[in-house]
């Protein structure tokens, strides 16, 4: 395999979880997310020869995954809301009653993040991925000040969303 092919394989394997987590902030449906993963992989493959190494690989991969996510949101907005999926269709996600508390928390957090405005969503996801302010700024092409502002707003919005979803769940259980 060529040097480029080796680099690509290593890159994809090492960053697969990061890519999937970023995409989960844009898309809930596992089947659509799988398609987006392919898009990210294709975009990475196409962009790899131009990677100059002036930013970290994490930053580079996250940027491309976000690009694909943004493009997906844009496409979704253009094509209108999707028809609700048939609930009898098999899903790769565990049924809520079999989810562990940890899985529930993860799902609740991902659901909350998906409802954030685009700019806040990107910043929060990268913060949760342990990116520093400078790295987030480099990934998104914005200033560090803007990162701090968006993060503060996102933190407040997220707390409000989680409070609301907690209240709804409690009412459903009652």
């Amino acid at each position, binding site marked *: 395999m060529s040097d480029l092919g080796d680099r690509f394989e290593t890159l994809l394997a090492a960053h697969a979880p990061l890519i999937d*987590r970023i995409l989960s902030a844009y898309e809930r449906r596992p089947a659509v997310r*799988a398609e987006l993963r392919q898009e990210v992989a294709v975009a990475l493959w196409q962009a790899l020869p131009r990677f100059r190494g002036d930013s970290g690989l994490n930053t580079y991969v996250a*940027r491309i995954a976000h690009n694909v996510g*943004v493009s997906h949101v844009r496409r979704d907005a253009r094509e209108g809301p999707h028809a609700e999926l048939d609930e009898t269709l098999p899903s790769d996600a565990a049924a809520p009653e079999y989810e562990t508390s*940890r899985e529930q928390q993860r799902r609740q957090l991902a659901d909350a993040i998906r409802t954030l405005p685009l700019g806040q969503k990107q910043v929060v996801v990268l913060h949760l991925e342990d990116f520093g302010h400078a790295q987030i700024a480099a990934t998104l*092409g914005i200033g560090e000040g803007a990162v701090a502002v968006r993060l503060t707003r996102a933190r407040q919005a997220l707390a409000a969303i989680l409070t609301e979803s907690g209240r709804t*769940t409690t009412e459903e259980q009652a």
Partner: protein
Amino acid sequence: MIDPSMDLDALKSVWRDEPALDDAASLQALRREAQRQTRRLYATVAVECVGTAAAIGLFVWLAGGAATTAGRIAYLAIGVLALAVQGWMLWLRRKVLRARAAAPHEYLELQAQRSRVAMRLAWLALIGGPVGVVIGLALGRWAPSEGAAVAIDVGGRSVVALLVLGLVAMLAYAAWVVRRERRRLAATERALGELQ
């Protein structure tokens, strides 16, 4: 349930619980897909260039059969104009052809640029099509070419019908492209605004 007062830093471990990818995409399939997309982009440009070359050939042929020197020059000038329009189209597409994934806002700007270029080219077809017909008719009357006369004599009405059908199809397609790209541009600019 997540405690809403929990700090974002405390949520990092919850967030990173996402299971790893279970179906690693086939590298070969990805390479094929990447190559297919690149080929499609260049194929479009190649088809346009072939079309332009055919148009230039046609005008040179018409110039060869023109009865007067002025007519010959006029046909050749239209051929040069077709070449210039093709060059302009390539120049408009230069950024799109060198597209690369960058920061999200740059990516969206590229999408917007793509839509603007497509709209410009569609407008060119919408305006240039009828103008071309008018110029062609006027030129045919003012500087008749032996070649065109022979083609119409041999093909008869079917040649004219084919030209009219081609023109109508081109205009309908261009109008559809303008509408589609206008919608795309609006959606892209909304997303760009959200990112500001």
